[in-house]
């Protein structure tokens, strides 16, 4: 039986235009909407894939405001068992703070009788892109950690993890309990069924608070670089533009022989 904890973060939809709040300190997601980072959606799918066949559980945890319940319930809708919300203003927290808050929640769950064989996080959040929460968490929990994982398989007390490396797919065999950060691409995203949505609405979400003192992220301001005006040269339309395109390729010296 493999129990998995998956950490998800509520982020402004990264596919939309980036609009900043009036104070220039946050991305205003009211127009683009909010979502879960792509890597974390993959982490939820992997967690369900690992836990379900073994009869284990999947807990979705988010550190954030009341609004983050939406992302927790989205995880439950695609197969997670239950949820945890660590209530905090995520914008005031740095990556070390988030790792501490998650570690504290893992400890509290363990004290209550629920232990996690595997903790999965996204490789990096779509908004802050810190690339470090999972690694910091692993040190706090004293567990091995692998970053950039795309597939996970568990047999007994060993997890086999695949991650893309510079020369190909790197395979790890890690003793459980462990931590892994997930990169999308190794598992198909899961979409909620009507039944899943119904279950998510009713599912129990435990609320916790973090007792630590935030160190913060060091953020002083955000800015959105202005897009330069278009300077595109249209070479033509359809296949008749091929000679002009090839002339450009030759000019750029990318055609050999």
């Amino acid at each position, binding site marked *: 039986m493999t129990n998995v904890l998956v950490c998800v973060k509520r982020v402004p939809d990264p596919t939309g235009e980036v609009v900043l709040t009036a104070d220039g300190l946050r991305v205003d997601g009211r127009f683009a909407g909010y979502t879960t980072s792509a890597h974390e959606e993959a982490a939820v799918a992997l967690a369900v894939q690992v836990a379900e066949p073994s009869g284990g559980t999947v807990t979705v945890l988010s550190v954030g405001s009341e609004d983050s319940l939406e992302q927790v319930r989205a995880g439950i809708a695609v197969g997670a068992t239950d949820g945890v919300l660590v209530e905090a203003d995520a914008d005031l927290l740095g990556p070390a703070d988030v790792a501490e808050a998650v570690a504290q929640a893992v400890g509290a769950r363990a004290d209550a009788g629920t232990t996690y064989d595997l903790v999965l996080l996204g490789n990096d959040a779509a908004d802050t892109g810190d690339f470090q929460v999972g690694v910091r968490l692993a040190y706090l929990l004293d567990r091995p950690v692998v970053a*950039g994982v795309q597939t996970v398989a568990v047999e007994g007390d060993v997890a086999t993890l695949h991650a893309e490396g510079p020369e190909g797919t790197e395979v790890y065999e890690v003793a459980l309990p462990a931590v892994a950060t997930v990169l999308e691409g190794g598992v198909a995203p899961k979409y909620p069924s009507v039944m899943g949505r119904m279950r998510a609405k009713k599912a129990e979400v435990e609320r916790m608070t973090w007792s630590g003192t935030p160190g913060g992220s060091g953020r002083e301001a955000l800015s959105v670089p202005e897009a330069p005006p278009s300077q595109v040269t249209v070479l033509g339309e359809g296949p008749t533009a091929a000679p002009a395109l090839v002339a450009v390729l030759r000019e750029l010296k990318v055609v050999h022989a």
Partner: protein
Amino acid sequence: MSVVVLVEVEEGRASLVSRETLAFARSLGAGDLHAVVVGAAPEAVLADCREAGVAVLHEASDPALERYAAAAWAAVVEAAGRAARADLVVAPGTGRGNEVLAHVAARRGLRMAANVVAVESLSPLVVQRQVVGGAALERATVPSRVRLLSMAGHAVDPTPADTPGEARVQPLAVALDAKDLRAQVVRVERRERGDSSGLAAAKVVVGAGRGAGGPDGFAAVDALAQRLGGAVGVSRVVTSLGWRPHHEQVGQTGSRIAPDLYLACGISGSIQHWAGCASSRTIIAVNTDADAPMVTKADYAVIGDMHEVLPAVLEELG
């Protein structure tokens, strides 16, 4: 005061992003430039380091390091930092660079700023870093005693130093703990050549998006990439639909490329995709929609269906 740069080795030389990181670190003017490499440095890596102005190259050749383990690499970076008395450690903003630096940060209780594109001041350390996949910039302070930065790929050119460095090789003795090796690569399933390995360092990338129409719509893309000696890159929708493998994905959640030429076919050019290809020297878009962001942001464009344009281009190339 000195700076240590983690150098990653690719195909026998310092990787492109490592050379960029060396140039970036040197430009900070923060004292002696040191580099650290895991394994014995090939001659080409030494040459790259000399050209970049490296004074000392710390080399860790423990057999236990032959297979990648991020914690062990972090122990090497820590040892190099101590040997160089560094107060700034910079890594390439690659998956590996960020992972190793995160381990150093966790082990030492230090701050780490990822995907930095500029340093505004060294004391206090104030940086600009990419957030939201490069669509926004964050100004942030890094108040650690030793500061850890990863540099966003392709934020600077890998320019040589005005005066080459000595790159004196200094063997590094690293005391590895069993815990440093408990998450170690057990084997590598190598990719075949020609399947877009090395996408991040490719000089030419031929990209395709939803306009390819399906998994069978890449024949001309593959042929053109091969004809130009380049790699194939795809948009996120292509991998999400399972048409092509994820390692070919360009964008916020894929590879960041900086080729001399990016030929983007049937790609609309979402913010996420742009984050991965904005460093291309020249962009040519082939798209049916003249108003698509990829077209308006490109240097050159052909308005048309990639399935008609690319075969004509291949024919013209002969």
